[in-house]
């Protein structure tokens, strides 16, 4: 009996459990699902429990249960736009990272092994430095006396420093760069899994490089694209440090909003509600993207 149905025996009534032969019980205990126990424990303690606490705090009022915080979130005219802007930031970042990351992944898989070793280092390097360091590097590049402005003024292209820091487009670009490995790595793995004979077959049938790329390579790499988009989207939505430092005080996103309500406003129930709303929205977008992706790639998993 395979593991999953075997574990049902554990939940079965005592009489049925007693009827089970010793050998069967042994197999249940050694069954594969139990290897996931540490992960399950981790999930319960560090994911499920905090979410439960959030729910509990979010719906508790002085006189017992209340939906007043949810009501406020939906109607105060501030919270929903912040949520919307945060989700848009995530999507825009994922889009920019895709545009930057896909060609990079293509370059990687078509490079010689020696060049690949160099490229992989460049691609994962951002993962090896902390997000804070990377964010401040961007401040140095984008600031009033930053690299870009010094260059532009030095060349006489602009009269004075241009506002780059604290603008949404630059925030998106910065986040896209910082989260780029999350986009590039899954796409590289999907591209490497494509049988090179498929592109050869395409060429032999008379298709040029672009046709092969569009009709064969891109469709077959969609699973990697979907994974990359989901990862970058979720990471960008929650990137508190980058959002605050490159985005500045005037661009408010959900993580900072939660922080303000909780730490500065000491309004823990409302902070909990905002957190839940962010969690639910991100999960909803992820589920939608995932579903769209599955539809687009369903023939790869017949």
């Amino acid at each position: 009996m395979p593991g999953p149905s075997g574990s049902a025996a554990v939940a079965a009534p005592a009489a049925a459990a007693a009827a089970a032969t010793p050998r069967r019980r042994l197999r249940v205990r050694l069954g594969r699902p139990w290897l996931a126990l540490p992960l399950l424990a981790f999930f319960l303690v560090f994911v499920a429990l905090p979410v439960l606490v959030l729910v509990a705090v979010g719906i508790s009022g002085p006189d017992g249960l209340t939906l007043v915080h949810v009501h406020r979130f939906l109607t105060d005219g501030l919270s929903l736009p912040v949520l919307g802007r945060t989700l848009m930031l995530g999507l825009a970042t994922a889009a920019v990272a895709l545009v930057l990351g896909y060609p990079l992944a293509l370059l990687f898989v078509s490079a010689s092994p020696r060049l690949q070793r160099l490229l992989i280092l460049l691609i994962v390097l951002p993962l090896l430095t902390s997000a804070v360091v990377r964010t401040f590097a961007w401040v140095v590049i984008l600031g009033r006396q930053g690299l870009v402005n010094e260059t532009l003024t030095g060349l006489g292209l602009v009269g004075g420093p241009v506002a780059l820091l604290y603008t949404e487009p630059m925030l998106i670009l910065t986040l896209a760069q910082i989260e780029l490995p999350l986009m590039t790595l899954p796409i590289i793995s999907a591209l490497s899994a494509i049988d090179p004979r498929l592109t050869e077959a395409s060429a032999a049938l008379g298709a040029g490089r672009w046709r092969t790329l569009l009709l064969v390579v891109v469709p077959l790499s969609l699973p990697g694209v979907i994974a990359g988009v989901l990862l970058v989207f979720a990471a960008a939505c929650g990137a508190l440090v980058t959002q605050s430092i490159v985005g500045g005080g005037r661009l408010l996103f959900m993580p900072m909003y939660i922080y303000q309500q909780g730490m500065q406003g000491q309004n823990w129930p409302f902070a909990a509600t905002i957190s839940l709303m962010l969690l639910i929205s991100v999960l909803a977008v992820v589920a939608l993207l995932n579903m769209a992706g599955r539809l687009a790639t369903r023939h790869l998993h017949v």
Partner: protein
Amino acid sequence: MLADAALPSPSPVRARSASVELTSVSHRFGPATVIDDVSLAIAPGEFIAFLGPSGCGKTTLLRIVAGFITPSSGEVRMSGAAVGGLGPAERGVGIVFQNYALFPHMTVARNVDYGLRARGWPRARRDARVREMLGFVRMSAFADRYPRQLSGGQQQRVALARALAVDPSILLLDEPFGALDKNLRLDMQIELERIHRDAGLTTIMVTHDQEEALALADRIAVFDAGRLEQFGTPQEIYDRPATRFVSSFVGHTNLLPGRLLNSRGEARIATDAGPVLVLPQARPCGRPGRVLVAIRPENLRLATSGEASAFAAVVRAVMPLGPTIAYDLALADGTPLKLLHMRGAAPGATPGAQVHLQIADPTHCPVYID
């Protein structure tokens, strides 16, 4: 196996079959020479097999002909024109890859349509051609399936239809039957033979299976370690193997070491095992000295009593193989010898028995330098 044993449809392949000439083609991957100075000429419409053990360079040579690889040196010509620098589509080659390489995200019909779209055929003409090709390979009922939903044999037919749809002038097949089980393999071999016969398309098939090569090809090129050992008809390859390698790779053979005693007239060879063999002539090696005589198991027969005997041997084992019986024999000095004869065609012998042997046809015993 093929449910619709339909009347053979007229071939939809309107081939302008090309000839192929390879001149001193060599190829190196890094320090390793994988193709070593290969020259051969293929006539339009011929069915050629590249035969050799795994790793001898067959696929590499096929990829050189296809235009995927530029050889380190040497020249490839098709229908008389040098094709160096041209890609596979410009060379007009149709390719069936070892694993078929069907596009997994496209239906059977879209796979066959792929090359037609790339060539910009109008929609109506493409649809008609796809229907025609799927009918030709008897896959019309599967037009809307995805490759994963097909068996190996069906995938192969789709790959053939896809390659042939664009009217190539040469068809290249890399181990086309390697992934099929034995019964299906025979069906597909018959199918390929039919397609070749109907279309008359120049065809090169890579295989490591000598029976397949002998059964299907007009001519066989036998390779060993990147060198062309022999290029000839199946009969030439089987009956007059040019080298020791060919004689042992194609079919089974007994190699008997010995000394060639004379250079003129009938060849007398003193085998190390004792008996002196007399052959009409020693070929391909006729120089006196150490040689190996190759005798096919089916070219040996048990002598009837009273007949002169070339060898005496002891029967070690008898293996009935269906229509034939194989004998495992040992000469006086222990040299092993295999003998094959048709069931019931000769007196039987039991293990342990002493038997006398004759060479059935001494003209088909090649002699190689040792």
